């Protein structure tokens, strides 16, 4: 009964010393997927990976004629471990391309490591404005959104509807505050006024006190940014408190994406804006959803789209140089110039590397976020602080 533990240790030591990856020249393209496999965001990481692999699979398992080899690291959504984790991919596995991740703090650390090692990084979710703002770089692109974008487009819609006094509510952390900032910018430009910003510590879910505050202030509209479990609870609490009927609730799309089933009736009829809508009726989206459902026996969502488009962006770059990663500059330039035929509709990249994309107004109906209108056409992130 003694030796197994002993052995495990020895094995661990040997293993960690014996892992130097051999330098490879012509072999497969190594894609490092740094996504959450445990914790609150695990389901999102799963969808992104599925989306990415679906596109590669549709191209016959190859991009620009080269095999794709995957390396995976669970980032645990923990920024304090981010540098170590990303180095596993960069230094240990020596990947050609980094793909990740969901959590903004982790993604920022990835962006920094990618910059220092000059590794190509494609961000398939994390919306931190800084990634394509002050931290932007020629080798960093994003296939998702910046936090500012869905906030801004919701602000435009809310102002157009004629609301004058708004309150905002979010977690007191970067993603939430940046989204709210986008909303405030557009809403006040459109003639409204944000009378109060409410926030609570991330990832707290005791909303009751803040809901009471909303009821006391009686604004015309409430803008909320929450995601995952917090979004489910907020929408349910908002409804249960009777506020849904009294004060319209608007949100960035993450309020109702991937959470509708859990939110049940409470979410029905909610308006949100995002760069994707499940029911977007364009050929590319229909084909994508069908293919996804056939392959994985489940419905695609916005995270799957972002993963899929990350692969499309990579493919665009690789195709331009015929799979020769040595021609880096040409490849990076091609990615910046590419028009990606995404399930969300065609998009291009801004100078900062963030999608310039249509933002859609959606309404939660049954199990879907249904497309209602284009909220803002070709919205580009202002990329404040980016010197590219």
């Amino acid at each position: 009964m003694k030796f197994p533990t002993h052995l495990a240790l020895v094995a661990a030591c040997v293993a960690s010393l014996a892992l130097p990856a051999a330098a490879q020249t012509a072999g497969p393209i190594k894609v490092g997927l740094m996504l959450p496999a445990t914790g609150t965001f695990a389901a999102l990481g799963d969808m992104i990976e599925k989306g990415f692999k679906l596109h590669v699979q549709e191209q016959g398992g190859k991009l620009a004629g080269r095999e794709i080899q995957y390396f995976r690291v669970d980032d645990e959504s923990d920024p304090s471990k981010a540098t170590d984790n990303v180095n596993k991919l960069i230094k240990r596995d020596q990947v050609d391309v980094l793909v990740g991740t969901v959590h903004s703090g982790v993604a920022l650390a990835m962006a920094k490591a990618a910059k220092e090692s000059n590794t190509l990084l494609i961000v398939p979710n994390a919306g931190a404005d800084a990634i394509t703002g002050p931290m932007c770089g020629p080798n960093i692109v994003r296939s998702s959104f910046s936090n500012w974008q869905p906030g801004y487009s919701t602000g435009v819609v809310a102002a157009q509807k004629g609301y004058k006094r708004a309150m905002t509510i979010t977690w007191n952390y970067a993603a939430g505050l940046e989204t709210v900032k986008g909303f405030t910018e557009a809403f006040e430009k459109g003639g409204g006024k944000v009378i109060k910003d409410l926030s609570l510590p991330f990832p707290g879910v005791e909303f009751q006190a803040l809901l009471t505050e909303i009821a006391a202030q009686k604004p015309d509209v409430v803008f909320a940014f929450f995601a995952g479990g917090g979004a489910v609870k907020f929408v349910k609490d908002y409804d249960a408190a009777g506020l849904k009927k009294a004060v319209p609730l608007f949100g960035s799309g993450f309020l109702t994406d991937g959470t509708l089933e859990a939110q049940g009736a409470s979410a029905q009829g909610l308006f949100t804006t995002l760069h994707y809508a499940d029911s977007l009726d364009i050929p590319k989206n229909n084909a994508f959803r069908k293919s996804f459902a056939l392959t994985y026996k489940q419905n695609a969502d916005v995270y799957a789209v972002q993963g899929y488009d990350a692969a499309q962006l990579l493919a665009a770059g690789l195709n331009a140089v015929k799979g020769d990663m040595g021609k880096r500059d040409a490849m990076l330039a091609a990615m910046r110039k590419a028009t990606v035929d995404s399930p969300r509709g065609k998009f291009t990249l801004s100078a900062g590397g963030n999608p310039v994309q249509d933002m859609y107004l959606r309404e939660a109906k049954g199990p879907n976020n249904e497309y209602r209108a284009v909220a803002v056409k070709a919205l580009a992130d202002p990329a404040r602080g980016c010197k590219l």
Partner: protein
Amino acid sequence: MRPWIVPVAAALLLAALPAVLTPYTQDLVVKIAIYAVFALSLELLVGAAGLVSLGHAAFLGIGAYVTVMATGDGGGASALWLLPAAMGAAALYAAFVGALSLRTKGVYFIMVTLAFAQMAYFVFHDTKLGGGSDGIFLYSKPVIQFGQTVLLDLDRKPDLYYTVLAALVFTYALLGLINRSRFGHALAGIRVNEQRMRAAGYTTYGYKLAAFVIAGALAGLAGFLLAVKDGAVNPELLSWHESGAVLLMIILGGIGSLRGAVIGAMAFTLLKELFQSEALLGPLAGHWQLTLGLTIIAFVALLPKGLIGLKARLAGGAHA
């Protein structure tokens, strides 16, 4: 055998290692060494003085934050004042926390240290002070230079490696000396029976506070090194998970021994590395929480004195 032979041999081995290491494994050794410094600093509290702190990560985090914030946006700041600043800030907060929390005992002490660490965590997490939840970044690494001669540039890998190694040796030696000193004997006395020590005329509160501040400063040293190594600092460094992890390291290694703390830091880091490695475990790596959890349970069941007790157990034959 003299007690210092094994540690000195280990240090010499570590000093020679970079010759055969890949950049990645060298990073791994650096990381383990930093965590060993951190674990040793807690060992002074838990092992020597019997003070179980569940908020030790606060000092690590403060050391790291001060390193980055004091560097600012300018060029490489001098390590000569950056390091003392990081350790000093950590020591200062430790003095504050210690002064209040040492009035309590046992489980209460565990929880008060946790509370103060959580407070620090939320200050960095919720306010603009340190860049909020996304943290802040170190864009230029500390240097030591006189005029034009650069003696030490922590941006260079060998410099970082040997600085971390030196810090580990320093911490280990310092704690070794403390344990043998009159101060160390007093701490041991307090751990065993505080009442009697007080009766013997010791101001036990003062001794404990001194230990707490030293431990805080050493954790600040680990924080400085971590900030320099990663170049990124964020509130999760102060979270209770981190405090829990370092406590686990010293329990795993074996409390009451400096070697145990180092071995524990190594074992914990390597085990996680192993269980998360897809190259070695294939799809099982996706379930690393399960394998790591079960392994820890096995350790607890089989090794009551931690890994350091393994040798005695192997030598001691088949009983139990």
